[in-house]
Structures are given as structure tokens and as C-alpha cells.
């Protein structure tokens, strides 16, 4: 196994700094390699369970408090345990979708950034209307536009009627007033129409209700509440290589599964770190990899990974026992009993960790077991315990005992130079 790239890079820097000769480098590299080897996983290590525990044990210490201010930006985001559950559940739409939009170098002035932000923020008709009146005799709604706001949002007021597409009504614009005439005479429908009219999307990206421009390390960044990456990427000046949203499904749909995976990792890690809980990234990566192996994002739970497991017993023992057992019998399913749970159910040694290895004992040459002839093989695998017998064991080489690779590995770790 070669040393991972990160260490290689570090080593190169180190070598350059200390001006090491190639021979010295080679010598040192051998040490580094040995150190790396000692730090790698033991085979058959149940990483899955360790990952699950490492992720969920700190979750018990997380706060339930849903909302938190994301920095000074003033945008409230779901965090803590609810957010963690949201990520693992792979919800299609997070409770608080947000985007972090980076701007490319050419558009880094505050004016330009603000302009981009303006293009992103959704403007509804109600945002630019001062007052509205309903005339029940002639069946029309009249909205007075706020000329200052119209200017601020840079809206062409005359083109407004074209954006209003309400059935059974016709809009017109005249001198700062927007009038909507209804063709039918239902008063209740007219009232309903008023609300629909005020909610009309005028400008910006649908669903983005808040836009905050902040400076992060010498760089202007736009944070939003509400997300639509696809449309944002089409705006000029947006650095689509670095902008992201907190909805991994959106990341997956717009940028592909690898981006989805990265989104899961980043979001989970951010949530953990925000709560001040340190979890090794490797565990989060494993989880994200498991959720995305098949090229689509699958949830942790009944309808995702757990519901699609190959083993009937694993599925039945998780949730919906009846459904899985009944379906298995009709389909004539076969359980290969390769996992841990299945073997626990059947009272067998599970093929995981030390249980994945068979014992091979070698009886020293010329050794004759006095008592072994008269007893069964069952007894042969047992060794007497107690210090006295242990000493005797070593002395007489009675049996090569339970030399499980795990044991050796653990011991070798401790016998480092």
C-alpha cells in the first residue's frame, strides 16, 4: 500500500525544506510508509457500526433548538439534531433551503454584487404595491404601485400586465396604477383573485425570499433563503464552481451524484461542527458513500437503504416485519446469511471483526495430548485459565491458542518502535 497523496505532498515539502538528498529521502520515506501502514484499518473491522455510533452518540448531546442565526447574515437555518435527521432522511426539500453564492473575480465590486443579489431576490407584486382597492360594482381590483420601490427594484411598470396571468381577468397599467378587471361576477372569486394577484411573481428567482450580501474573507458572498441553483448559475458573474446550496438533492440534480455526495459530507460536517462536536470526516464520508453508491441519493431508513437490503431477516428485524416476511415467502427469497444480524438470529458466529476468521491451530511436532484422546474435540479448543495454567501453557507449548489475526494486529500496534 502506498502512502496517500496528502502525506506524499507533505513529505515533499518537508524534503525540500530540509534539502534532503534522494538517499535520505528514500530512507525517511520507508519510515513514513511504516507509520502509515500501522495506522491503516485492520481487515474485517466493522467500520459501518463504528461510523453509525460515532455519528449518533454525539447527536444525543445536540440541542434540539431548531433555529439559529447563521452568522451575522441574519438568515435562520435549521441546525442541530433536526437538521442531522433531515440529512440522513434525505428529504427532497430541507426545512430551510439556503444558497451560498460566490461571485467571480470580475464582479467583485460591491455595486456589481448588489446588482446580482437584486437579480436573485424574488419580487412579488405585493412588495411594490402601496395599497389595493376592490370595486365590487365594476368588479375590478386597483393596486397603487410604490414608485420608489418600482425604481429600486428596477421594474418596467408598463410591462407588468403581461406578467399577470390570472384566468378570467385582464390587467392593465396606467399612471402608477395597476388595474385588474374580472370577467365574471363572483365576489368571492374576486377576493381570492386579489391574493393571487398580490402573490404574482414579478422578478428574480422564485422561492428566494431573503438575500443577504456579506463579506467573507475579502470576498463578497451572497447568502439566500430559498434555493434554485439552476437559475442562479445562469446569472452572469456567479462563480458556479464554488456556489452551493444546502439541498443535496438539488446539488445532485444540477451537478451530479458526486456533488450530491460532497453536499451530504459538507452539510453533515457543518452541522456537527456548529454544535462543537468533533467527528472524524471519514465516518461522514462512509455514510455519504453508502447513501450515493447506486448513483442516486437514498435515505437512511425504511424507504431507503434499510428497506432495500438483500437479507430478509435484516429487513424484517428493522421495521415492517410482516410485510417483509410475507413478501419473502411469496417470492421464494433466499437469505444468504452473510451479515451480522442474520447470524445473531440463528445463534451463529457473525462474519465480522474477529468472527470473520477461522481458527487454525498447529500442534507442535511430537506432541501427544494425553487427555485429548479420551475427550471430544469440543474440549480440545478450551484451554485452562488461571495464571498457573497459563504459565504451564507457555512452557509446554500445549496449544497454539486462538491466534486470531485481530489479536496479533492489536498487539503489533502496541509494539511500535
Amino acid at each position, binding site marked *: 500500500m502506498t502512502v*496517500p497523496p496528502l502525506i506524499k505532498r507533505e513529505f515533499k515539502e518537508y524534503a525540500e525544506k530540509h534539502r534532503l538528498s534522494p538517499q535520505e529521502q528514500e530512507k525517511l520515506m520507508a519510515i513514513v510508509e511504516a507509520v502509515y501502514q500501522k495506522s491503516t484499518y485492520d481487515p474485517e473491522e466493522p467500520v*459501518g457500526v463504528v461510523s453509525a455510533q460515532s455519528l449518533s452518540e454525539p447527536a444525543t448531546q445536540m440541542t434540539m433548538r431548531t433555529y439559529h442565526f447563521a452568522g451575522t447574515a441574519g438568515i435562520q437555518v435549521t441546525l442541530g439534531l433536526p437538521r442531522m435527521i433531515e440529512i440522513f432522511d434525505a428529504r427532497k426539500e430541507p426545512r430551510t433551503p439556503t444558497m451560498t453564492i460566490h461571485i467571480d473575480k470580475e464582479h467583485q465590486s460591491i455595486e456589481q454584487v448588489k446588482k446580482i443579489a437584486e437579480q436573485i431576490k424574488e419580487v412579488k407584486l405585493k412588495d411594490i404595491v402601496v395599497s389595493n382597492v376592490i370595486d365590487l360594482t365594476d368588479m375590478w381590483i386597483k393596486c397603487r404601485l410604490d414608485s420608489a420601490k418600482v425604481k429600486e427594484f428596477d421594474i418596467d411598470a408598463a410591462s407588468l400586465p403581461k406578467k399577470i396571468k390570472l384566468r378570467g381577468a385582464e390587467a392593465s397599467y396606467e399612471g402608477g396604477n395597476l388595474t385588474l378587471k374580472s370577467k365574471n361576477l363572483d365576489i368571492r372569486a374576486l377576493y381570492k383573485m386579489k391574493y393571487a394577484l398580490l402573490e404574482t411573481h414579478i422578478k428574480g428567482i422564485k422561492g428566494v425570499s431573503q438575500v443577504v450580501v456579506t463579506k467573507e474573507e475579502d470576498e463578497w458572498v451572497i447568502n439566500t433563503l430559498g434555493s434554485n441553483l439552476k437559475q442562479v448559475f445562469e446569472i452572469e458573474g456567479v462563480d458556479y464552481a464554488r456556489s452551493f446550496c444546502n439541498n443535496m438533492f438539488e446539488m445532485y440534480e444540477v451537478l451530479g451524484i458526486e456533488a450530491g455526495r460532497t453536499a451530504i459530507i459538507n452539510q453533515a460536517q457543518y452541522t456537527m461542527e456548529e454544535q462543537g462536536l*468533533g467527528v472524524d470526516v471519514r465516518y461522514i464520508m462512509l455514510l455519504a458513500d453508502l447513501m450515493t453508491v447506486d448513483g442516486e441519493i437514498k435515505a437512511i431508513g425504511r424507504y431507503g437503504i434499510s428497506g432495500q437490503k438483500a437479507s430478509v431477516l435484516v429487513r424484517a428485524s428493522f421495521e415492517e*416485519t410482516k410485510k417483509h416476511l410475507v413478501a419473502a415467502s411469496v417470492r421464494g427469497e433466499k437469505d444468504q446469511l452473510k451479515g451480522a444480524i442474520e447470524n445473531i438470529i440463528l445463534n451463529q458466529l457473525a462474519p465480522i471483526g474477529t468472527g470473520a476468521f477461522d481458527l487454525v491451530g498447529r500442534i507442535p511436532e511430537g506432541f501427544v495430548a494425553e487427555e485429548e484422546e479420551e475427550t471430544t474435540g469440543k474440549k480440545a479448543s478450551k484451554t485452562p485459565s488461571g495464571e498457573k495454567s497459563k504459565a504451564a501453557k507457555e512452557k509446554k507449548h500445549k496449544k497454539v491458542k486462538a491466534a486470531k489475526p485481530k489479536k496479533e494486529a492489536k498487539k503489533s500496534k502496541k509494539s511500535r518502535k
Partner: protein
Amino acid sequence: MALSKFRELEFSLMSPELVKNMARVRIVTSDLYDADGYPVEGGVMDPRMGVIDPGFHCRTCGGGIGDCPGHFGYLELAKPIIHVLYTKFVYYLLKHTCRKCSRIMTVAAKSPKAGKKSTATAAKCPHCNAQQKKVTFAKPYAFYEDKEELSPMTIRERFEKIPDGDLKALGIRGGRPEWLILTLFPISPVTMRPSITLEGGERSEDDLTHKLVDMVRINQSLKENIDIGAPEFILNDLWELVQYHISTYFDNELTGVPLARHRSGRPLKGIVQRLKAKDGRIRGNLLGKRVNFSARTVISPDPRLSINEVGVPEIISQELTIPEYVTNLNIKHVKELLRSGKVNYVLRPDGRRIKVSEDNKKDLIDNLTIGWTADRQLQEGDIIIFNRQPSLHMVSMMAHRVKITPYRTFRMNPSVCPPYNADFDGDEMNLHALQTEEARTEAECIMDVKYNIKSPRSGGPVIGLDLDQISGIFLLTKKTTLLSKEDASQLLAEAGIEADLPDKKEFTGKELFSMLLPKGLNMEYKANCCENCDDCTRSGCEHDAWVIIKNGEVKSGCIDAKGVGAFKGKIISKIDTLYEDSEEVKNFIDRAGRLGIAFLMRRGFSLGISDLDLDSSVHMRIDQEIKKAEKESNILIEKFKKKELKILPGLTAEASLEAQIMNTLASGVSNVSDIIADNIKKSDIIVMAKSGSKGSMINTTQMAAVVGQETILGKRIKRGYMNRTLPHIRPGDLSPMSHGFVSRGFKDGLTPFELFWNIMNGREGLMDKSLRTRKSGYMQRRLINALQDLKVQHDLSVRNANNQIIQFMAGEDGVDPTKSDNGKINWKEYIV
């Protein structure tokens, strides 16, 4: 040890032939017992179906209780019955097969676009061109074809005609579809539904037996009615009733079916209910079992024990046993154990278990030979597993060495509390005595506390000093601590540390602490007591917060939570990674903990109310500071009312006001905190906060001066009456005082209203906690279930039980965080 192993488990449907072949009895009567109280032959409790009474033998296999697994019986149903659990599949089959020729009716059957199966029902059969009718399924078990009910008989006839070749396409591989309609019903063995004899000789039958009795009775009466040619509606009623009983036998929680109840009104348990959910057979009995050879009691601290020891009360040690297999190597030893009364049972090779008593002891010692097994009592030095629930972690179960102690509690070193998340306010813990050599070996080589000092979660230590241990070490290693040689040696003796003191008159605490460090340890770090000065002078730190350790000697800096604490302890982490032998870290933690406590005991450590006393001038400043914050808040409120308030981006006016008030008050409180930090007596409270052993400056401020803003859901307190929080407040008042700002400290005492707010906050915390444990518990179950069969292969790839590759390289670099240093490999430390 199992001789054979299950390789595969196959699920399939039961054919009527199978039901008949495996049955030993044909059930014909619903009577259970005759007048003499003996089970009736041909009844549901037929003795040929197994034994449940002690002393009796099975009429089929001859086995006694426990040997006889039980045997099935069968019931011939007068009319076919639909198996409720399979109604979905029956419906599916009816929809997708022709009503005339019973062939599969998918559009794909004829169209060239094979593989794309349409689920829509075809109007005409592609095979025989018969016009189809619309099949509907009315829960729980009725089927209609254009409003005309389909009897189980017709359904069965149709299914019989489905050719085997079509079954595969329909996705049915577990047997013939007509088996979904029952004609012969398997009567479960008595062993799976034992009756209990109440006192007074009255028998109480199992729920399933009750169900079976009903089933057999109605079936019998249906048969008789058919024979006498009873009218159709009577037959249909009875048929329906049999269907009901059989359905509820399988599942008594069906939608649209009234619950079958016991005479007492309690719903009966069907087979599905037996298997399902937490306490069901699968999760309750197969995956989780009750164990023997375990003990549980209250825990208490004992810093004199090593971290990998556990104090076991003598009474417990006498009860728990470990099998000792008698061989020619240990026979003398076992005999000695027997003589001293340390063996509870002996097991003869023929399987007889004999309890050792004073009377038979002599005989047993004489008879004991190779091949016997002696269940000996727990001894000092035995390895056992110690556990505290909830076991959220792998380090919630670790192996300890037994130390026999008096009294009735388990004792443990307080340094191992963090991984178990234990404290001594009444916590109980479990202990498991290991029964096989394999288990003991694994516990010794993998589960021992000393191998689990580093948490797999973060790669940092989970075991380290805590509370007084840290306070002690901190005070000891302070610059000003000087000890005479006499004191120093006394201290080391109290801590149980053996070391040679150099010939010197005076010792600094740092020198003493350095004796615990292994030679060759070099490190430099910033301690917990660092005050975050603007320009750090590093080694010249006036607070002695820059720790330098050279060749195992503390050159400067105080040792505190950052160095030796659990979770943070840098020294512990370093010793663990650098030294091959885990004994080294273990000894370090043991000795440092004892030294800390020994020093603290000599110095004395306590706090009192007067520790929080402040000068009247300081009090004035604090009051001013708080008044200032309140005034500023009131100005904000005024501005808000005049609509002049600065509105924060993305917030409403109200929200901006709230945010700004909270900010002003918080900064006011933090100013108070600073004043206190500068002026409070340097008492032991401050020692604790500085060393990181317990508490913080915030706690001190809350006690001495001001508690601050109480919040509900992260906001100021808003709930209560309309527009006000409490009745004595004017409606619409937005001032800090009326929304949960507590301007007094705990020492001075809160006003009744302030106390009320404080309690509101406390209640929120309680609710949050109970809600959180439930939510995160379920999350953990789901995570474990999803990830449980992933493991690292020999090529360092991660695969699941299906051998599907999840990661090509575990964690992208193959590094086990447990073997890393906080997730990294510090290879530079190995290069000298």
C-alpha cells in the same frame, strides 16, 4: 460449539401436502380436555402435538419438556379460506391473469418491447382474447369482479390454472398461487402456545389456543351444516366466521376487522403481533437476549483503582462463576479451589451438574478428574466486561480486571467515567463474567480499557482526568507551588507512586509532575488557563499558560484540562500514540489522577458563599453596567415605537428589535463578567474555571452578579397573557424586565418573577432533553441498521454483506481514526 452451520435460509409458501405431511394429528374437535382434565385426542391440545406439562412425555417423539420441539396438526377446512396476509398478492394475481385461461396478461407478453411490463390491466386477454372484467379488492378479504363477489373457491380454481411458466414472470417463486387460498390449515404445536396452570388447578390457555378453538368449532359446524344441506345464507355466515377467526389468528390488527378479544376484553395476540416490534420475537428474543453470569449494582468512585480495574463486591464475586476445565495441568489448582470453597458447581463429563456443599466437598475433591468442569467463583485479576446503558458507543462496554472489594457497590476510577457517561449520583452499571476462552482472549486483547483510551469517533482521548484530579494537578504545577523533600515524598507515597527523589531540598510541583512523564516526551501547547492576550509572548507567558515539555520534563506552563483532561488531553493523546505499550498511558492516567487528588487533599479545596463576595464599589459598577444595558434597550424600544429603528437585513422590524435588545443585554452581561473576572477573590471557584475542571466564568457571573436573559426557543420570553408575560405587567411592555431578563445573581437572590422565568427556562431544558433522547435514539437505530454490515476488507475497501463496494479505500486513505492523531498521521514525529 456448533457442529454445523446454516448457510442459507429459504422462504416459501406451504403447500397443502406439506401441511398434511408434517402433521401428526388431524384435528376434529374443539374440545380441549375431557371430564378428568386430560387433553382430548383430536382436539387442539392433543398430546401428540407436544408436551407442556413437566413429567409427561411426548406421544410422538417421546421427548420430555424441552426435548420435544412440538409437532403440527392439521385441520381440514370445510370450505377454502383466503390467507389474509396474502390478500395483496391475491389481488395482484387476479388483476394480472385472465379470468378465463389464467394466463399472464401483461402488455409486454405480446409487444416487442419486452422488459417493460405494464401494470395496467388489459381489456382483453392477449392469449385467449376473452373480455376482462374489473377486479376490485375490498379490505380485509373480499374480492369483486364488476360488483359480483368472487368466492375463495373460484379464486382458487383460477389460480390452479396459472401455468408454472407464467409464475416466474409474475414474480412468484415461493410456490403455487393456489396455496394462498387455504384448504388445509396447520394447527400449531402446543409447545408454541403453552397453557399455564393457575393456583387452584384452573387452566389458562394461550391466545392462539383460544383462536384455534373458535376456528375448529365454527369449521365443524360449517361442515355439519353442509352435510345436512342447510340454506345458503347460513353457510355463508359460517364461512365468513371461519374466515374471520383464521384471519385474526394470523393478524389481529387488520384494518376493517374488529379486534378479536379475550373474555376480559383484552385484544388477543395474533401471530404477527408475536413477531412484531420491539418486544416481539425478532427484536425482543432473537436479537436481544437476557443473559446469565451478569451482575448489576450502584457504582461509586475509587481513585486508587487503576483505570482498567473494577471493584467487585465480595457477595457478587461469590455468585458469578467462570468455568474451569479440569486438565492434567490444573487439576491441583482446581482441587485447591474446591477445598477453599471457591467452586460453586462441578460438571461431570456425563452432563450432571452438582452443587458443591460442605457435605459433598470431600467426595468431590476425591472424585474430580480430568474432563470435569468446575464453575469457580470470580477471582481477583479475572477479566470481565463492564457496561453502562444506554450503550451508545463501543466504549460503553469495556473490559476491566476484577478487584474484590468490601461493601455492595462496584467501584471504578473516576477517569473512566467519560466513555461510559457515568457519574455517581446513583448510576448503576452491569458486569458480565466471560465464559469462554475465546471471549476472554478478545476482551483482553481488544476491549481492555487501556486499548480504548483513544475514541474512534474523533481520534482524541476519551479517558483522562476529571474534576478534582485536574484541579489538583493544576494547583500542583502552578509556578508558586514549592514542596520540601519531606512533603514531596509524602505526596508521592499518598498517591502510591514509587520514584526516587533526587537529592534536593525543595521541589517544584512541575518537577513532581514530570516524574510521571515518560522520558523522551517533547511537546509545546497552549493550556486551558490561557487568557487569549492580544500579543502572545509564548514561553514568557505571565499566566504560565504556555506549556513546554522537553524530554519528559515540564519546563514551563500549568498542566490543566488541555493537557490531561478527558476529550482534550494533549499529553494523554501524545503518550498513547507515541508509546507502543498501552501500559504507559494507563499508568500515566492512574498516577496523575492519584497525584492530583493527593495534592488537593493536602492543600484543601472548598468554596463558600463568601467566595462570591464583591466590594461595594464593584457592586456599584455592575449595577451601572446592567442599568446601562437596560437603558440602551429602552432607547431601542422607543426608536422602534417611533419607527426609527435600524432594521437588520432580512428581518422584520420586530425581529430586528428583538435581536438588538438581546445583543445589548448580552454585551452588558459580558461586561459584568469581565468586571467580575478582574475583581473577584481568587478563590477555588476561579481555580476550577481556569483549569477547566468544572464550571466557567459564566457560572461565576450568574452566581455572583447577574443571571441574564432567560430564553424560550432561543427568544426572549413571549408567552403568557395577551400582549404581556405576567399579569402585573402593562400590556405591550417590551422592556427587558418584563420579558425574562434576570438582573440579579443567585447569591443575592431572584425576585419571584425572575425565579418564574428562570424556571420556565429550566422546564424547556427538561422537555428538550426527553424529546432529544427519543429522537436521537431512533436515529441511531436507523443508522446502525443501514450501516451494520459494512466492513473493511483485506484490500482496505469497504463492502457490504453483498460484497458490493461502498468505498474503494476506507475513509479515502485507509487510515483508522482510532490509530490516528485526531484524524491525522503525524509522521514527522517519527523522524528524528
